[in-house]
C-alpha cells in the first residue's frame, strides 16, 4: 500500500467561532489535533459540529479565531488550497462521471502525470474493494458503495486531513456497522488524520481516539472515549454517554464525594460529579445497566434500594429493557437479565459510585461569566 497521508505535526483551532445572522453557531472552539489522530465531533443536530467541520474545510469562513497547521495560519486559504479531503453526508459524487473518474477528479486537479493518476485510482479502488465497479456511474451503485467511492475519492489525494460529515447516517443499520469497520481499517492502515462528525455516540466511541462533545455551539467536554464514558463532566455529556435516567433530586446531606439525595420516589447515596451543598437541586444520572433488579432470592441490605412498578418489558436478545415507574411516578429505564411481568413490583438497587450527580444548569459558567455574556448580548 503506497497510499499514505502527507503529515503535519499538529493542527490547532484557536477560539474558532462562527455566527450566522447574529446567532452563534460555534463559540470558542479550542482544539489541537495531532497527526494520525481520529477526532469525533459529537452532539445533537444544530450543536455546531457541522459548522466546525465546514470551517475546517474552508467552505464557510470563520467569524473569529484562527486555524493553524504547524504554526502557519490556514483559515484564510481557500478550500481548494487546503489539501484536505472531505466526505459528505450525501456522498456528493459527481453523477455524470464514472466511479473511476470521480476518484481521479482531485488527482487531475493537481495536474499529476497520467500514469500516476491511473496507478493511484487503481489503488483507491482496491482500497475500498470496488474494482469491478470502476466503469459504472454513481447512480448505478448502492448507498454503501457510493459512500466507499466518496471515501476513496478523498483518500487518494493523500490529504493532510480527512473530514467526514456524518458519512454513515444515510445507510441502513447493517451497512453502517460494516462501513464503520471499514473507516476504522482505512484510518489505521493509512494513518490518516481524521475529523469525524456524528450524532451517534456509539459510532463516535467506537471510532475515535478523542471525542469533542458540543452543545449549542459550545464545547462541553474533550477526552478519550474512556474518559467521557466514565466521567462525563455534565449531565448533557452523561446523557450522550448512555446515562438515560436523568432525575431531578434534592441534596439532603453531603459527606465527602457522596451525597444523600431524595426525589422522584428515590432516596439514595450518589457520587457528586460536580460540587453541591445540601438544599441544592441537582440532576441524578444513572445508566440503565447500573440499575440492578434485586431478585427475591438475594437479600439486599436495604442500602440504595427502592421499589418500582414494571410497565414495559422489551426483549433485546441477551437482556431485557424494562420501563419502570417509582412510587412517586418517576419513569426509569432498566436493563435486566430476567424478565419480570408487566405490573409486577421489583426492587432496584444502584451502586452509589455509579449514580452521578450534576448541576441541572448546563452552562456551568460562573456568575461573572454569565453577566459578561449578557452584557455582550
Amino acid at each position, binding site marked *: 500500500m503506497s497510499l499514505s497521508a502527507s503529515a503535519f505535526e499538529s493542527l490547532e483551532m484557536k477560539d474558532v467561532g462562527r455566527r450566522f445572522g447574529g446567532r452563534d453557531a460555534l463559540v470558542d472552539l479550542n482544539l489541537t489535533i495531532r497527526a494520525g489522530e481520529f477526532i469525533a465531533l459529537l452532539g445533537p443536530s444544530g450543536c455546531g459540529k457541522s459548522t466546525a467541520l465546514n470551517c475546517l474545510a474552508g*467552505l464557510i469562513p470563520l467569524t473569529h479565531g484562527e486555524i493553524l497547521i504547524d504554526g502557519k495560519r490556514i483559515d484564510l486559504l481557500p478550500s*481548494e488550497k*487546503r489539501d484536505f479531503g472531505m466526505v459528505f453526508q450525501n456522498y456528493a459524487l459527481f*453523477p455524470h462521471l464514472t466511479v473511476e473518474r470521480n476518484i481521479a477528479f482531485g488527482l487531475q*486537479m493537481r495536474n499529476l502525470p497520467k500514469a500516476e493518476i491511473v496507478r493511484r485510482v487503481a489503488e483507491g479502488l482496491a482500497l475500498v474493494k470496488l474494482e469491478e465497479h470502476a466503469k459504472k456511474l454513481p447512480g448505478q451503485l448502492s448507498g454503501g458503495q457510493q459512500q466507499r467511492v466518496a471515501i476513496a475519492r478523498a483518500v487518494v*489525494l493523500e490529504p493532510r486531513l480527512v473530514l467526514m460529515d456524518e458519512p454513515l447516517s444515510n445507510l441502513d443499520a447493517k451497512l453502517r456497522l460494516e462501513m464503520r469497520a471499514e473507516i476504522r481499517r482505512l484510518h489505521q492502515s493509512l494513518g490518516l488524520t481524521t475529523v469525524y462528525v456524528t450524532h451517534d455516540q456509539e459510532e463516535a466511541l467506537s471510532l475515535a481516539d478523542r471525542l469533542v462533545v458540543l452543545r449549542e455551539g459550545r464545547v462541553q467536554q474533550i477526552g478519550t472515549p474512556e474518559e467521557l464514558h466514565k466521567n462525563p463532566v455534565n449531565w448533557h455529556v452523561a446523557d450522550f454517554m448512555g446515562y438515560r435516567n436523568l432525575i431531578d433530586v434534592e441534596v439532603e446531606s453531603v459527606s465527602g464525594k457522596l451525597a444523600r439525595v431524595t426525589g422522584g420516589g428515590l432516596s439514595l447515596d450518589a457520587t457528586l460529579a460536580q460540587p453541591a451543598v445540601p438544599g441544592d437541586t441537582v440532576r441524578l444520572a444513572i445508566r440503565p445497566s447500573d440499575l440492578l433488579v434485586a431478585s427475591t432470592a438475594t437479600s439486599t441490605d436495604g442500602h440504595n434500594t427502592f421499589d418500582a412498578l414494571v410497565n414495559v418489558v422489551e426483549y433485546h436478545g441477551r437482556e431485557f429493557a424494562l420501563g419502570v415507574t417509582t412510587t412517586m411516578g418517576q419513569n426509569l429505564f432498566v436493563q435486566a437479565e430476567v424478565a419480570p411481568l408487566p405490573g409486577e413490583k421489583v426492587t432496584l438497587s444502584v451502586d452509589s459510585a455509579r449514580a452521578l450527580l450534576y448541576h441541572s444548569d448546563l452552562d456551568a459558567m460562573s456568575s461573572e461569566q454569565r453577566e459578561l455574556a449578557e452584557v455582550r448580548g
Partner: protein
Amino acid sequence: MTVATVTSSRAKSSASLSHRLAERGISTRLLLLVPAVVFALGLFVYPFLYGLGLTFQPLPATQAQWGGGLFANYVAFFKDAFTFDSVWITMRLALPVALFNVLISVPIAFKLRNRFRGKRTLQALLVLPITLGTVLTAQGLLIFAGRQGWLNRFLIETGIIDQPLQLVNNYLGVMFSLIISGFPFAYLLISSYLSGIDPSLEAAARTLGANWKQRFLRVTLPLLAPGLATTFILTFVLAFSVFPSARLVGDASGETRVLALMAYRSFAEQLDYAMASTIAIMMGVVELIVIAVVFLGRSFLYKGSTGGKG
C-alpha cells in the same frame, strides 16, 4: 389441498373482465381523456392536416410559373429566391438571439442563486418583460431607440455622436425586441435547472482542489448542458416564429423579411392560401431540423439525476 387450489387459480384468473382490463390500463377513467382528444383533433390535427392538404392544391398561376404539378408550391418555395432567402433571414435572427439569451442567462442565474438583499426585486425586474406583449415592447423600442428617441437625442445633445444611430426599423431592432421577450424564459428555465444541481457537488469539487473555472467546466456545466440545450430550443422556436416585431421594429421587406411575414404576405396580400400553408409547413420543417440537431447533440450528454431539489 391448498397447493392444488393455488395452481388452479393461477391457471385461470378468477378476476372479473373489467378487473383484468383495468390491469392493462383500460377502464372508464379513460373517458377523462375525451375532452383533451376532442380539442387536439379539432384544433390541431384537423387544421394541420387541412393546411397540409392545401399545400398540394397549388394555384394555376403557381403551377404555370414553376411547374411540378401537385408539388408546385414546394418547387416555388425552393426555387423562388425571394421566398427561400427568408429561411436564412429568419435563421440569422433566431439563432444568435437564442444563443445570446442562453449564454447571458447562465451567469445571471448563477449570481442569483445566492441569497442577497434585493434578490426578489431584481428577479421580478428580469422576468417582467414576459408580461409585456410584443407590440408594447416594439412601441417602447421605437420611442426609446428610434431616430428621434430618447437615446439618440441624449447622445446627440451630449455631443457623443452627431448622426442618430440606426437602432430600429432594421435587423438590430428586431434582435433587441426578441432578446427582451425571450430572455425571461431563458432565465427562468436555466435558474430552475441550476437549482436542481446539488450545491454540495461544488463544495466537493472545491475540497478536491478545483478552482472556480474547473468547478464550472467540469461539474456544473456538464450537469447543466442538457438544460441549456432545452432552453436553447425553446428560445429558438420563440424567435423563429417572430412576426409582430419583425414588422413593427424591423425592415419588413428587407433584412427582417422572416418566414412568418412571407406566409402572411401570401395569405393576406396575394390571397394564395396554398402558398401560405406551404411556407408555414416549411417553417415547421426548418424548426424540426434545428431541434433534431440540438437533441442529437444532447443525447450524448449525461441526463440523469443531478442530486438537487429540482
